[in-house]
């Protein structure tokens, strides 16, 4: 064995001890709680989405006349087609949910504070990327709901001041929705976004490794436990749980498809996917100017939250203003979501 290893080592000059170091990383004991494994979950779901997504490209045709037919083909004719498509759809919903849960966990444990502010920025970026992924993917089905949700969604961009119209035309590949539009959304979904997402995930994980896992405030415990095999097994269990959950979900709730998109006729009741409900509800309530301004404030506040937290701390030290402001914002978001979901 050692002859083989030295033969290999001559040709790939890495020190195996160096490679094993990340495996031995000591993790603070609070990480044993399952709620702290919510970070790895979206990454695993992304891997599942990438695999099933690539499989879908073998049968999907990104041209209006054939897109709907190809999705129908996958769902009803291709062997295990419904299975692959169903897992892809289920995993995309789960990914949004787990990213949200992870973000909420990081927020309430204040893991974004100095020196980890940058990683919060990358995280919010990942969240936005996930939503964009979902939006572009949804538009590819080309049934009535998909087509009109995309039309409305992109039209909102035009209302953005100054840059709105040019951005809309660039996104659509033309003044109106045309065959170019579908191709662009497809290229974003399978090319541009996966590259950006892979890069950001890498950077996000790297930052955590560089800083080490953030210690919990007010936690006096100093014990640690090794990443391998203890924490790794936890992640493997979660990964398998996701797969089992998705496979069984698809078995009981296989995907279907709606009516083909007709550019000439909007269906009676149209609205975006649930993850856009809060924004949708807000925009319906106010004029377009206030609507846009409000959304922008919210997103900017979310992005720069570590600095907002610092400001709040200066205003009222040790009074936990961050907790009140943060919880209030989350409450409003949830209320809007439920309002739109139930009342519509």
């Amino acid at each position: 064995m050692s002859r083989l290893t030295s033969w290999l080592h001559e040709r790939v000059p890495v020190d195996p001890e160096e490679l094993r170091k990340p495996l031995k990383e000591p993790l603070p004991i609070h990480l044993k709680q399952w709620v702290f494994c919510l970070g790895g979950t979206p990454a695993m779901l992304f891997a599942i989405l990438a695999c099933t997504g690539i499989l879908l490209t073998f049968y999907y045709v990104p041209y209006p006349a054939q897109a709907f037919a190809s999705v129908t083909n996958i769902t009803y004719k291709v062997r295990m087609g419904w299975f692959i498509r169903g897992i892809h759809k289920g995993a995309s919903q789960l990914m949004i949910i787990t990213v949200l849960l992870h973000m909420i966990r990081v927020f309430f444990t204040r893991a974004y504070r100095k020196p980890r502010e940058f990683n919060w920025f990358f995280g919010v970026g990942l969240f936005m990327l996930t939503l964009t992924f979902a939006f572009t993917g949804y538009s590819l089905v080309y049934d009535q709901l998909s087509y009109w949700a995309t039309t409305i969604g992109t039209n909102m961009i035009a209302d953005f001041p100054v840059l709105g119209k040019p951005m809309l035309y660039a996104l659509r590949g033309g003044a109106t929705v045309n065959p170019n539009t579908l191709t662009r959304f497809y290229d974003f979904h399978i090319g541009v976004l996966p590259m950006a997402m892979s890069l950001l995930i890498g950077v996000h994980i790297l930052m955590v490794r560089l800083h080490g896992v953030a210690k919990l405030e007010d936690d006096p415990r100093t014990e640690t436990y090794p990443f391998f095999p203890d924490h790794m097994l936890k992640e493997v269990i979660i990964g398998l749980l996701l797969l089992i959950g998705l496979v069984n979900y698809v078995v009981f709730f296989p995907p279907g498809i709606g009516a083909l998109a007709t550019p000439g006729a909007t269906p009676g009741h149209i609205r975006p996917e649930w993850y856009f409900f809060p924004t949708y509800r807000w925009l319906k309530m106010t004029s377009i100017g206030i609507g846009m301004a409000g959304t922008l404030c919210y997103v900017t506040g979310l992005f720069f939250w570590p600095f907002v937290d610092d400001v709040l701390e200066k205003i009222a030290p040790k009074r936990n203003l961050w907790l009140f402001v943060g919880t209030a914002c989350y409450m409003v978001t949830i209320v809007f979501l439920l309002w739109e979901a139930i009342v519509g």
Partner: protein
Amino acid sequence: MTINAQKYLVGIMGLILLGSVIAAGYLDEQRRKTENPPAVVVVATAPPISADLQPGLKLYEQLSCVACHGAAGKGGVHNINSQTGQEVPSLIHVADSYTKADLIAKIRLGVPVSLKLNPDGPVPPLHMPAFKDLLSDADMDSLVKYLYSLKPQGDNPGF
């Protein structure tokens, strides 16, 4: 839970996954044979059509003819720089302009490249695909019957 216990848990979960995937595979045969794509209703306000035209309408929608030629063959989809008025042609007059054999040939062979209105302009993005032998003769008959029925009746000249 001890490390070893966790390892056994992982192994068991792997086997549960195996079982679930086997179940899904078994269902695949059933699902593909018995389920058909749902009957598509294109426009809610379209007048009801008679039963003998239903198969043709179903084909017209399933094969995405409607995506380019519009509901009830009304056309209106842009096709830049194409000689057919820069739009995908409507089909409401095919009963008068194509014999059955010619219409079938057109559908089977398609139009590989749409003719350009302005020779210096771009190639029109849409062209009639060749359906070759995707349709059986019986299906083709149903489709042609439906297409011929698109001719406007009486006081509705369709202009």
